[in-house]
């Protein structure tokens, strides 16, 4: 077995997988937070509250 392979799987898959999990999770968290903020801010406006400081 090649020293850089584990079973039949190259180390590349593990490393890329680990980095991809982090990047995608943080990106998803950021985008979902921005979306929730926009929805909540719009709803606040509709309820009649000023959003000048929101």
């Amino acid at each position, binding site marked *: 077995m090649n*020293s*850089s392979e*584990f079973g039949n*799987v190259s*180390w*590349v898959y*593990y*490393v890329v*997988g*680990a*980095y991809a*999990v*982090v990047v995608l*999770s*943080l990106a998803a*968290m*950021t985008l979902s*937070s*921005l979306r*929730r*903020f926009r929805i*909540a*801010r719009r*709803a*606040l406006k509709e*309820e*009649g*509250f*000023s*959003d*000048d*400081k*929101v």
Partner: protein
Amino acid sequence: MSLVHRDKSFSLWSKLLLPAVIVQLIGWYLGLFWIGADKDQGDVFRIMFVHVPVAWCAFLWILCAAVFAILGFMKKSLFEKMDHSAHAAIDLGTVFAALALATGSIWGRPTWGVWWDWDPRLTTTLVMFLICCAYHVLRSFTPDVQARRNAGQIVAILAAVNVPVVYFSVNIWRSLHQPQTFVRKGSSASSDIATILLVNTVAMVILSVVLFKLRRTVVATEEALDAAREGKQQI
């Protein structure tokens, strides 16, 4: 009428987002392509440059949540603001704990031969993650605002109590997981590895602060919306 006040420091920190992303990309480049393979683990050790920073961010935000909770209990005038901060910090703690478990599991498969083992470090990290999940469950199922905040603050403090247990678990019990390499004198880790790890950690902490500010704004806005709707219903 304004219910939510813009977090001025959010604007300040959001300006750091781009530099932090650039530093993070440089850190990942150094970890993935610049530094040579480890003599024992080969190239798979490069997972360390993402696994360790997310694990430290999990510790950081869970400890911060407890500090916010304690400050909220100590100063009643700050209770609401501290509750928002603790909630946002636990949000981040949950995500980073999940990421630490996921990346650790991906690293464990090629180095230990298993995706998961009931090792003290892994088990205590899982407990820490589950306490964070319990925080969200408790908040979701408690209708009374004050009771929800009190219960949340107590769980945030409990989650932080577990952090030193996770951190020192590799020293207290016999563990598959390697001990803390960078706090011991005569560490086997090279200065290159330590420097790259530091760059990645600093970048991840700054990114997490920007995320924290964003989450806190979301929490405050949603709570303001709930309060506005409840106020209308009472009228």
